């Protein structure tokens, strides 16, 4: 098995094109997935009973159904109800909804770890419950949830590969196409693995920077 220069000349540009698509899938999904996850997690802890029920149900659904099935439903199923998604739109929507469901669980755990006294102190100063949650509880919980949420983002990078199943040609899709054409599966997928390792390394580094930025004495990690 030799990866010759000529083969790489063909492989790399195709993968780079796919890589760009992957980034376009991952970045908005990570950002909006986390934000939605914080919102859902918060509502699942502090919402009224019907709101809690609704978002618990949402979480059960999107954590319980395989992502591939979600993608197929969004891309192939919804058009029969008159809702049309482009492959890219369907992928990003599914990734956001799926990762938000997971994020909400990390956030929920973190929210429950905030002491009751913080809520009492906010209330005693005349803050409404919403103000206390928004300015006191969520900023603390978010910091506690960050390692878990980072994990979910790393995971997202890898499950973004499923987008090729609904014809969104990201890096795995491009790799598969070339492998199928050339039958050089081993080389192609080994290079693909390096691409993912690269993406995950960058994400880990960014997440660490972010954690450092948000670092506050007394929140778990020692600097």
């Amino acid at each position, binding site marked *: 098995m030799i990866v010759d220069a000529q083969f790489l000349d063909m492989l790399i540009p195709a993968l780079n094109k796919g890589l760009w698509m992957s980034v376009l899938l991952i970045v908005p999904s990570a950002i909006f997935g986390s934000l939605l996850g914080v919102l859902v997690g918060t509502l699942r802890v502090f919402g009224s009973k019907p709101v809690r029920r609704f978002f618990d149900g949402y979480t059960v659904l999107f954590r319980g159904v395989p992502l591939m099935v979600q993608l197929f439903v969004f891309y192939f199923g919804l058009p029969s109800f008159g809702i049309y998604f482009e492959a890219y739109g369907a992928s990003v929507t599914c990734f956001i909804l799926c990762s938000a469901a997971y994020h909400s669980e990390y956030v929920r755990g973190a929210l429950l770890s905030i002491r009751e006294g913080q809520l009492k*102190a906010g*209330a005693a100063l*005349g*803050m409404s419950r919403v103000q206390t949650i928004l300015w*006191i509880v969520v900023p*603390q919980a978010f*910091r506690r949830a960050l390692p878990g949420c980072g994990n979910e983002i790393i995971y997202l990078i890898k499950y973004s590969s499923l987008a090729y199943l609904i014809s969104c040609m990201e890096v795995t899709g491009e790799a598969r196409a070339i492998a199928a054409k050339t039958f050089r599966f081993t080389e192609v997928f080994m290079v693909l693995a390096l691409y993912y390792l690269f993406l995950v390394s960058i994400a880990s580094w960014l997440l660490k920077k972010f954690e450092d930025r948000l670092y506050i004495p*007394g929140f778990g990690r020692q600097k």
Partner: protein
Amino acid sequence: MTHSAQSSVESPETPVLRVEHINVSLGGKSILKDVSLSVNKGELKVLIGPSGAGKSTFLQSINCLIHPVSGNIWLEERQVDLAHKKKLFEYRQHVGMIFQDFNLFDHLRAADNVSIALRKVKGLSRKEANDRAVQELERVGLGNKMNLYPAELSGGQKQRVAIARALAMDPKVLLLDEPTSALDPELVGEVLAVIRDLAQSGLTMVMATHQMDFARALADEIVFMQQGQIIEQGAPSVLLAPGSGTRTADFCSRLSDLYEEK
């Protein structure tokens, strides 16, 4: 209860805070039974009693952190509508609360702990709120700790930040729930010194404590609670007089016995 006799003897001014017939139950168990208290301007009332007597619950029910099952509260002349959320939030701004375990906002620096409610509740600008925070922190002797986070402060310093945070809201009454009982013995003094200054500057306060020397020296009235009720109430010179035979005196002598044994 001595309450009604008390208020007729008192000067005709309206009390700053008046709570009447407060009943609280938690989990079906009655914790406070028909507790009433009236506090005049500038008074320091000290709640004492064995643990589980309901002192902490009583203080928290005064600003509705624990909702009373029944009871009425007046702040100055106005009765507080406890069912009306907006009015309750407004009322709480005027009634400061100091907790046993400080409850500082762990993610905010000392100055921001003090200023956040000024900004979010009172609507002050960032600069105005910060100036006020600096002023209050200097008042409790923490002018040089403004940029530290709660985790970087000692217990005594945390409690002083909590006091500054409450004072910044210009409360009409300050409720203190055993402010020194979570502190190491050598840190109790610095917090009591701040509270003493406040008492002498005429701030109205209701304080639960086991610091009997402090109560004896500074309280206008001692309120002795047991099993969710006020048992005795009166000036320390009366309740703690030698040979007075009051429950309060008995409780205090047992407290001091305990400390001497140590």
